[in-house]
């Protein structure tokens, strides 16, 4: 297939996955806060950090309360990670792919985009927000089902799966990062019961609490949850699972040995880390390393398969900001 079209379908899948995961995040955060006692200043700001858009948020001088953060994540057109921006980009990419995508898939996305835009006030209203967010996840899953069920397994499908799994691995690592390290202060007393709530919320952000219970048969603990979210071989939203999928699809392509080498690095890294001795700072650094690997995988896919840019232009690539207490890496996007 055309290199340009491969890039578009890859980004279509990433934007859809991003919109879905951001919806999960907002929903679960709201739920978690309801369970916590008053007096803990946990709030909404961590969600801005998760999506790596703190610089945009600060530049726009928002208050970090529920109302403004949700608006920022849901509807802010200047926040490239907002659901509204992701869906818009997904639709614009899909528009260039109308000759590739099954008709139903385009219709679902197009119709949902119109619905989303019309229903936005419901998403910003606390009382109706839950249903609104649930619908985003549901439509995204429906769309994935239609694509899985009707697309031939050609290169178009392969690049879609590469985009979906890479974005999913990225979002899962972000969820783990912010949920574990920043929501609850480390040394706060009387957090016993809330530790569990916190890790359940990680699992719920991934729609994973059910599968966790089935396979781990354990209390929800920090070490087990981390292992499940990052390294589980069977759960489809775990980072390891996504990496395995990427490997599988890369093997259907020609000229993939360079990308496979990069990917192997990420595998080895994930396989050798230990979660038991990890403090919060260490966990944050681990996630940051993992994201650098994911960025590397993206860069080598782009180099191997996407069109060469005119002249010496380079695709924008986020730099690692891994420092002590540094913020999460920004989400990155295709060439505008």
């Amino acid at each position: 297939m055309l290199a340009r079209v491969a890039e578009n379908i890859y980004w279509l899948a990433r934007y859809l996955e991003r919109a879905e995961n951001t919806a999960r995040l907002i929903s679960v955060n709201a739920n978690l806060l309801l369970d916590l006692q008053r007096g803990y200043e946990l709030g909404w700001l961590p969600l801005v950090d998760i999506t790596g858009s703190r610089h945009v948020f600060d530049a726009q001088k928002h208050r970090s309360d529920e109302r403004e953060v949700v608006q920022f994540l849901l509807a802010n057109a200047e926040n490239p990670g907002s659901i509204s921006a992701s869906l818009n980009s997904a639709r614009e990419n899909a528009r260039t792919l109308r000759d590739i995508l099954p008709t139903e898939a385009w219709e679902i996305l197009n119709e949902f985009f119109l619905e989303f835009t019309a229903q936005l006030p419901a998403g910003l209203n606390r009382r109706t927000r839950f249903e609104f967010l649930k619908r985003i996840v549901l439509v995204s899953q429906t769309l994935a089902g239609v694509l899985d069920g009707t697309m031939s397994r050609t290169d178009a499908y392969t690049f879609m799966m590469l985009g979906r799994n890479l974005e999913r691995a990225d979002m899962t690592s972000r969820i783990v990062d912010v949920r574990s390290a920043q929501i609850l202060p480390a040394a706060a007393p009387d957090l016993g019961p809330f530790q569990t709530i916190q890790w359940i919320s990680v699992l719920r952000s991934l729609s994973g609490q059910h599968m966790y219970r089935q396979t781990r048969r354990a209390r929800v603990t920090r070490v087990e949850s981390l292992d499940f979210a990052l390294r589980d071989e069977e759960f489809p939203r775990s980072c390891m699972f996504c990496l395995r999928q990427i490997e599988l699809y890369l093997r259907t392509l020609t000229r993939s040995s360079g990308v496979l080498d990069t990917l192997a690095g990420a595998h080895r890294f994930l396989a050798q880390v230990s979660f038991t001795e990890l403090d919060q700072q260490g966990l944050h650094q681990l996630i940051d390393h993992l994201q650098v690997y994911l960025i590397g995988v993206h860069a080598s896919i782009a180099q191997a398969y996407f069109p060469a840019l005119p002249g010496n232009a380079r695709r924008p690539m986020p730099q690692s900001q891994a420092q002590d207490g540094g913020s999460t890496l920004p989400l990155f996007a295709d060439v505008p």
Partner: protein
Amino acid sequence: MRIDWTSYSAPGLHDELIGPGGGARVAGRALARYLTELGGREIGVRQQAAELAIKAMGITFTVYHEQGGSIDRSWPLDIVPRTITRKEWNRIDAGLRQRVAAINRFIDDIYHEQRIIADGILPISIIASSRNFRPNCMGVTPPARCWAHICGSDLIRGSDGTVFVLEDNLRVPSGVSYMIENRQVMKRVFPELFDSAAILPVDDYPGQLYDMLAALSPRPQERPEVVVLTPGIYNSAYFEHAYLARQMGCELVEGRDLAVGDDDCVYMQTTRGSQRVDVIYRRIDDDFLDPEAFRADSTLGVPGLMRAWSKGKVALANAPGAGVADDKLVYTYVPDMIRYYLDETPILPNVPSWRCGEPKELEHVLAHLESLVVKPVDGSGGYGMLMGPMSTQRERTQFAAQLKAAPRNFIAQPVITLSTVPTFVGDRLEPRHVDLRPFILSGPSTYVTTGGLTRVALRKGSLVVNSSQGGGSKDTWIVDTEV
């Protein structure tokens, strides 16, 4: 409430559905009966359903605005179809085949011996002053000596019932995807109607288009690489480019996806390396096709494409230079071409036209501006023309100055009052003017669409049907009345 056709009046006009006595014409008898029973309110419900379906299916066209950039609009469809008997259509079909055959002979002649000029049928000045004549096509012989592979001819019916050819669009005619999608929508919202009449299907077009294009391939092979070349997402017809590529199972490419190699073959950049392209259905004007041959500032085209084409390494449809016949001045000679090349009598008449480049005719046109339509010879989309009867004295004075400055650039025609079709307005049916654009495919063989795209002027009394200027569309039914 039942529809009372006696209050549906179209005095002095030819209505396609309702005859002078208030009764339905034969092609629309079943339709009229059905609409009568349905009533205005229910028709309104169906109209809304159709609009919703169009929105959900994402059938759009793009309008460019000075301020707002490009805006995607839902495709406007009026749900009352336009009906034509199969018998009448057969005659139109034959007339279109005849016309396009002569036009292809003409283009080939112009780029070779120019016999038609040597024999005094056409003056050489017509070619010399044509903006669409391409000297670098001289001597090139495309496959099957065919140049205009896809032609969209605009037909109109006057008040006495005569069907005229208004123009032949030979460059990058659009609209065929809407013809097919209109039918899809109609089947969704009016399924029961299709039981009541023998309506011929229209969805054969993409298959026919693919076969024609594949037959042009320079490499004989079972599945040649055919691509659709689009200027990109901001083009007003992008929807159609994507639609046709998808229906034919071809790649939709942009200029930047293609490159001409040292072997003069065209290659596209794919995820599995470079791949040779055999046939390009290009939806880019000649001017932008190849910056080496035409406009050097074009970023939409492919450098070296003309070289590849003239060496026969790739087929282009339509062929570069085919636009020489898409000039309204050349149009006035098409009946002569039919007689000259085919030795036949034209089946479909032209609209009577005055050539402003000829001093006597210019004189007549200047003296009768208030009753004529004056059109630029290389215009399209209804831009830059003067509608005499609706113009002010001031506009006519200004236009007369333009005419005198460059008379070759204009032709004039009497105002033909287009036929009407009942159209849903508010809560009832009113007559609105329509035209019809069928599409003709030419290659080793010829194919004509069953009907075509009916465009309708939605504003009362307006004769402007272009979608860029507030026009709508209708499904077009060729009805077999003898089954």
